[in-house]
């Protein structure tokens, strides 16, 4: 069995086309069933996000599968093949593994290192498991990709550091004040930006949000829109400042509303309780010198943007380490994948040996019939053990072979030496029933067969 991938992503296609081929909109399950009904693939997973639509499949004939998968995309979504084809990319075998591992690691994402994609890969696999469209091949492939995603997240800084201004602000607040639960936020200015940031803080679990605005009615309206927030008159700003841990300033004032001297007065009764001021107004609301006060941490919108840029740069520097992990895991998966190429030969060899054993026992039956039943059972057991022992080393050797070409050469040699050629017809069955029975595979094959396999 081979692996194939056909897909369209933000790298190859404009958003208009991606919207047209969105599998989630039309139902991933329906797509998987329709795909199985076409019969060109044995196993399939559909990974569909706003940035990509990819079909992962296991098949016998990659050329045929590739053509069929491209046709499937255009037919399923009712898009002309000519419109899809120029934007499609594909890969086979270990190339598929490398691609999926990079996707799961967040290396192929629009924002490198974003964590959501791993969840989407898991969902895609779960959806395919539910309709029994995955078998041993894709199960192994996807489970390996989960490992890659997890390793990259824990072993590299690829996903670390906020990459949006609001997240950067929340992360900073956490680094200064510890847990945000129990912390109070003061928003100065009732405009849209202040409201959005306050909403974000609220969703992160801050204890209380207070809005102060020059016009009390504006403050009250914004407080109501946020929900669970309170409004305070402009004159009470100092008291509100004293009670807050995080201050967001977002007024349209032309001159600073908080001077260094002002903040100093506010800080005195606070003792060493830190105050984090986020100035997202343009022009700035807080005098830059206020940041010099010992326990005042002042960040304006440009500072936050700069940290976001730094985070993005740091992520970029972690890419090489993440790529190394992908490489290691592709290598591991490759070992397993190549060993599967030897399975038909191994099964044939095993069948040949077993056949010889049984026919010899049968031939000697007249001699053995004189023995008591226990002794006959013992003979059966011993001959079985001998066959197992004879096969042990060749099995291990074949499974550890490096590349498909060598596997082919060995298979050819074994086939000639042991006369396995007449058993070629059984190879397909061999593929269906590997030595280690896996329950999922049984289900998959039933599924595949019930939909009619190509002859």
């Amino acid at each position: 069995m081979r692996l194939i991938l056909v897909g369209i992503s933000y790298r190859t296609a404009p958003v208009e086309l991606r919207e047209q081929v969105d599998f989630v909109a039309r139902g991933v399950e329906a797509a998987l069933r329709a795909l199985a009904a076409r019969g060109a693939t044995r196993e399939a997973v559909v990974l569909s996000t706003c940035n990509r639509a990819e079909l992962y499949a296991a098949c016998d004939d990659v050329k045929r599968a590739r053509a069929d998968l491209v046709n499937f995309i255009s037919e399923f979504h009712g898009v002309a093949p000519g419109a899809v084809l120029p934007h499609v990319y594909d890969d086979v075998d270990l190339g598929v593994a490398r691609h999926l591992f990079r996707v799961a690691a967040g290396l192929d994402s629009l924002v490198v290192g974003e964590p959501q994609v791993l969840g989407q890969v898991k969902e895609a696999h779960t959806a395919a498991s539910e309709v029994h469209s995955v078998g041993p091949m894709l199960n192994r492939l996807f489970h390996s990709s989960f490992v890659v995603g997890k390793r990259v997240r824990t072993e590299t800084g690829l996903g670390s550091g906020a990459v949006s201004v609001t997240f950067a602000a929340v992360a900073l607040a956490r680094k200064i004040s510890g847990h945000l639960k129990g912390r109070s936020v003061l928003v100065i200015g009732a405009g849209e930006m202040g409201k959005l940031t306050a909403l974000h803080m609220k969703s992160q679990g801050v204890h209380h949000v207070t809005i102060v605005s020059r016009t009390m009615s504006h403050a009250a309206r914004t407080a109501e829109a946020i929900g669970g927030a309170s409004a305070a008159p402009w004159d009470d700003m100092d008291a509100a400042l004293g009670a807050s841990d995080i201050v967001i300033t977002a007024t349209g004032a032309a001159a600073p509303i908080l001077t260094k001297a002002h903040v100093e007065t506010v800080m005195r009764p606070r003792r060493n309780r830190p105050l984090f001021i986020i100035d997202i107004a343009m022009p700035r609301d807080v005098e830059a010198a206020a940041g010099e006060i010992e326990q005042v941490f002042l960040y304006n919108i440009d500072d936050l943007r700069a940290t976001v840029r730094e985070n993005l740069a740091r992520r970029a520097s972690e890419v090489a380490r993440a790529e190394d992990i992908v490489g290691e895991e592709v290598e591991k998966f490759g070992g397993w994948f190549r060993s599967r190429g030897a399975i038909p030969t191994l099964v044939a060899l095993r069948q040949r040996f077993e056949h010889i054993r049984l026919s010899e026992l049968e031939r000697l039956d007249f001699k053995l019939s004189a023995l008591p039943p226990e002794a006959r059972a013992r003979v059966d057991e011993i001959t079985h053990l001998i066959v197992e022992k004879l096969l042990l080393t060749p099995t291990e050797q074949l499974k550890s072979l490096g590349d498909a070409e060598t596997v082919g050469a060995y298979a050819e040699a074994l086939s000639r030496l042991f006369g396995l050629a007449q058993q070629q017809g059984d190879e397909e069955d061999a593929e269906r029933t590997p030595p280690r029975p896996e329950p999922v595979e049984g289900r998959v094959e039933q599924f595949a067969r019930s939909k009619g396999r190509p002859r």
Partner: protein
Amino acid sequence: MNFVPLALYGVALVAYAWHFARREPAVGRSATTLLVAGALAHTFIVGMQTMEVGHVPVTNASSAISTFVWLLALAYLYTEMTTDERAMGAFILPLLVTLQSIPAFKPGTEDRAAVLQGPLFGLHVSSLLFAYASFALACVIGITYVLLFKEIKAKHLGFFYARLPSLQVIDQMNQRAIVVGWVFLTLGMIVGAVWAGQARAYAGGDPRVQAMSLQDPKIFVALVCWALYSFELFAARRIGWGGRRTAYLSTFGFAIVLLNFVPISYFLTKSHNF
């Protein structure tokens, strides 16, 4: 004998540093495991010596340092387990390794003088060693506070920002360590004074006992430490000092403790030259 924990602390140091730099969880776990192993081996050694001499081995500078390192390792492990925070390990372990190499390379013999027996003496030394261990923790925590504080103030969020807990948490850990250390320092000094008074009565001829006065450098510097840490606690509660100032004070205080503990013990003191 002290080589086994030294070696384990050394390997643990490498693991903690590696974990701090690369943040691989498996390395972090093995770092803790190594430190636990080192602390266990150390417990065994301290326990054996206690059995041998009949009290905690503290009556010469080398064994006192060894016991101190043991207490510090335990105190740090307690902090790590309760806060689930491994970042400090990279700062504590260098101190453990440096100090532990003293008893490992220059072992002393336990003084069995009758004057150094008895529950009061044991309490005096153990409380002080525990106080020093707490101050050592506070010092390291203070250093990490300053490192993180500087990064946030400079708006350059980098290495420490990604690895250390929040400023608030570090500040709390620091204050807690100072309170614990101060309580034991006070207790140890009071018990020491009481013990010295008694010793004068029954062992007045011992030159060490005669030297026990405020003029002795070891006792004098210990009082300076007490004054410094008392001020730090007072400042934190009354003047509202905290954060960076407390962190600096913790570092400075422990520098004095270390000065008192190692060079003064070895070369200068007449009363505590066991």
